[in-house]
């Protein structure tokens, strides 16, 4: 076997085993979920921490995001002469796609990176080893509450983005594009239905879970010193983005196949 082939093979093996170990961490977290004592204090601290680093950017992202969708839909519906449906399309787009994606970006970019950096710094200072030696399982003590906090906040954020996005879309449509409030509100639930909200929240739960697992996995396994922590944070954000968009695509595909569209 040539040197290049050997190298490529070992790189592939490393990548596969990394994925496997991250997956194993996910399973381990699920297994430890019912284990008492539940670290309620850590959960609250972490949830508050995640909210603190995401809430302002989320609001700031979702207003222009909702507005962009409103503008795009507004001009599009105007061209085909279906202005009365702009509200319906706006809600559908925001709740089903925009909100989970904005949540994913903020959960991975703002909360995941901070979580990964925190755990990474603790790992290289041997705090995690010390915890294991003191007979405390860091997965139960640190990772489980973090994952739950991330899921919890992701669901909340998703709702938050949906509301801000829809309100933003309404405002832009009515105040800037000369849409009529009546038409917007009347068509509000013409296309969207309750399962749209469910799939949106299911996405948020999965996004929160995956983002937290990747952040914790990379944070607990940085390679070599402080620079390794920087690399780990960077990788965790990139990997999480890739995974979340992939999951979004798969879930959307399944959802569109399984749930019949509501014909307005």
């Amino acid at each position, binding site marked *: 076997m040539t040197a290049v082939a050997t190298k490529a093979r070992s790189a592939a093996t490393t990548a596969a085993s990394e994925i496997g170990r991250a997956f194993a961490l996910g399973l381990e977290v699920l297994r430890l979920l019912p284990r008492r004592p539940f670290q309620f204090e850590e959960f609250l601290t972490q949830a508050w921490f995640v909210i603190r680093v995401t809430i302002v950017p989320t609001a700031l992202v979702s207003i222009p995001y909702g507005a962009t969708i409103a503008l795009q839909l507004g001009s599009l519906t105007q061209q085909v002469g279906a202005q009365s449906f702009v509200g319906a399309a706006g809600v559908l787009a925001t709740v089903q796609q925009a909100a989970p994606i904005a949540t994913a970006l903020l959960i991975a970019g703002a909360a995941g990176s901070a979580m990964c950096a925190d755990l990474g*710094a*603790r790992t290289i200072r*041997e*705090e995690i*080893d*010390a*915890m294991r030696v*003191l*007979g405390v399982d860091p997965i139960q003590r640190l990772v489980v509450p973090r994952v739950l906090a991330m899921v919890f906040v992701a669901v909340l954020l998703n709702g938050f983005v949906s509301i801000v996005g829809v309100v933003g879309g309404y405002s832009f449509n009515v105040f800037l594009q000369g849409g009529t409030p009546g038409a917007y509100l009347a068509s509000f639930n013409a296309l969207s239905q309750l399962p749209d909200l469910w799939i949106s929240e299911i996405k948020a739960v999965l996004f929160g879970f995956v983002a937290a697992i990747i952040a914790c996995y990379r944070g607990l396994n940085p390679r070599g010193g402080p620079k390794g922590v920087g690399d780990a944070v960077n990788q965790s954000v990139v990997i999480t983005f890739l995974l979340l968009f992939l999951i979004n695509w798969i879930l959307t595909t399944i959802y569109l196949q399984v749930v019949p569209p509501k014909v307005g």
Partner: protein
Amino acid sequence: MGAEVVVEGLTKSFGSQNIWRDVTLTLPPGEVSAMLGPSGTGKSVFLKSMIGLLKPDSGKCVINGTDIVQCSERDMYEVRKLFGVLFQDGALFGSMNLYDNVAFPLREHTKKSESEIKRIVLEKLEMTGLSGAEGKLPGEISGGMRKRAGLARALVLDPEIILCDEPDSGLDPVRTAYLSQLLIDLNAQIDATILVVTHNINLARTLPDNLGMLFRKELIMFGPREVLLTSEEPVVEQFLNGKRLGPIGMSEEKDTAQMAAEQAMADAGHHHGGTEDVRGIVPQILPTPGLPDRKGERRRKDRVMQILHTLPPAAQEGIIESLSEQDRQRYGVRPHQMTGVGGAR
């Protein structure tokens, strides 16, 4: 009494790089042992393997009947409760102050009331000379204080085995001496088995009952301190005296050509780096007067006298000389009397 640690044929590699192989030793219960070795010989890796933070490739490490190489994660966490480990930098939790750091194991593992926890924590902090610093965060104190706080935290659960990873690094000689005294006092008080990993010669000469040395991926010896301190082995002599002449090089090992070149330079009058020959047995430090006698020391004396005839002559000589008149009568030995010639393990 502290727990016995039996290590058999332990081997560890990182990828294709072998760290050490076939390490076999027994840490006798309640005795203080030290592991010497040049930087980079895997002393810390050995320590981490003993507590299951790293998984050895093969071999056994049996503590209280549990082989931590093979046992389940759950058993591992049980066994770890027997350990108190002092990490190189203390490994304190950066987000908690010293008090909460030291209280952490008590809050996690015991149902003690806060007032009881407070009593124990303050006692341990006082023991390690940290009274008054309990409100400080680890980032606000010196490396020596972090180390002592790490020791205080390792002690709160009354461990049966205490492992110290380079307790002297970053400490001045006086504080190192105080720390050695603290370890001996602890041993006298709770009879814990102690293993210290170090390359501080002064500490290695005065603190432990048993000494070992790791070099060239192997445990080159482990046994009563007298054996290593009187050893004729070139690598031991070089290490104890801190000379450049000998088998240890800047990058762990050196070849014969370089050894010959350095010998020639030294013969021509170039300084070899060492000062004087510090081999030979010096008295071991004793518990502070007023504390109970070390039970481990008594057990060790019996154990060593039983294997005396298997030790090298210089070590036998040293051991017999260090005995009191009473003990010599008890064991029926006298100085300058060889009981047989054996080899070092």
